[in-house]
């Protein structure tokens, strides 16, 4: 059907007004929130005899003697960390009255690649533990085997301080 021109114009205007009156608009946007929790590892030790770890039997030069239990964990898995074992006296038990000191070999029995066996701490011993599971403790003993020496020991207290440090490796 063909409408007169005036009627067509009126219809077109009406449609335009209806469109304008009924239209609403909305807008949307978004933003990201994010944060990283850094890798971290923890270490602790437990000495059966309080803050000074288990006393050693100085005349026993063949038995591996337990000292402290060292426990570590990391807040991630699979990838490595670095454990550093060092001795204040470079692997010697020292008596202030004895210039020679008494050497020992150290062992750490911790699992997940954290352990080592029969090493002198004259220099740092480095291991690279790879935790199986985040935030799960791994424990091992620090064991010492005193070494023989030809000179007799001096009366007194022989001691050393072993420091264990664990550091996460960067991803």
């Amino acid at each position: 059907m063909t409408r007169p021109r005036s009627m067509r114009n009126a219809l077109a205007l009406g449609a335009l007004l209806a469109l304008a009156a009924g239209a609403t608009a909305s807008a949307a946007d978004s933003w990201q929130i994010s944060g990283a929790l850094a890798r971290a590892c923890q270490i602790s030790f437990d000495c059966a005899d309080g803050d000074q770890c288990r006393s050693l039997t100085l005349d026993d030069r063949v038995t591996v003697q337990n000292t402290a239990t060292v426990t570590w964990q990391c807040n991630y898995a699979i990838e490595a960390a670095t454990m550093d074992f060092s001795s204040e006296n470079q692997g010697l038990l020292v008596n202030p009255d004895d210039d020679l000191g008494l050497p020992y070999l150290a062992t750490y029995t911790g699992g997940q690649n954290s352990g080592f066996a029969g090493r002198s701490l004259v220099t740092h011993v480095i291991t690279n533990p790879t935790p199986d599971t985040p935030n799960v403790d791994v424990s091992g003993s620090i064991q010492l085997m005193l070494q023989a020496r030809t000179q007799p020991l001096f009366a007194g207290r022989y001691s050393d301080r072993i420091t264990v440090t664990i550091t996460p490796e960067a991803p």
Partner: protein
Amino acid sequence: MTEAARPRRAVIAIGAGLLVASAVAAPALAGDHKDILITTTLARTCGVTAPGDQTIDPSSLAVQPVGSVSYRCNFVGGATLRLWSQNGGQIISPASPSNGGAPQSRIYSTVFDGAALGQLTNAADTSAQTVRAIAAANTDQSGAASIQLSSAAVIAGAYLDTIFVDITP
């Protein structure tokens, strides 16, 4: 042409004849006017701008600001602002070998413009998007947003979520 149309054409012809005769008889002084009503409607609209990406501390239980949402409507009246998030109000660190092979997530609650909105819902659940009624004022307006974790993340990794905001007149 139909029979019915013929008489009308005859009348028009006579009228035209009269107009010509009167124009000749007197000067054309009479005026006339018509009013033409022109109307149009500007639709109600609102615009919203999210803040830029925000950094949070996934190990903190403190209230953490996450920027300010700016909006403007071209009218004075009520409008509806909706907030939801991609992860339904959780920051998530995707599964990876280094986090134990399982995604790590922490729920957070949201405060917008001083109103506690609780845990945001997921974008897919549009019926449950968090709604906030606002009073549009035909001027620039804004509302600060903050989040608070319900528990701290303890496994290393990158945690994130995307918050969506929508405003409707």
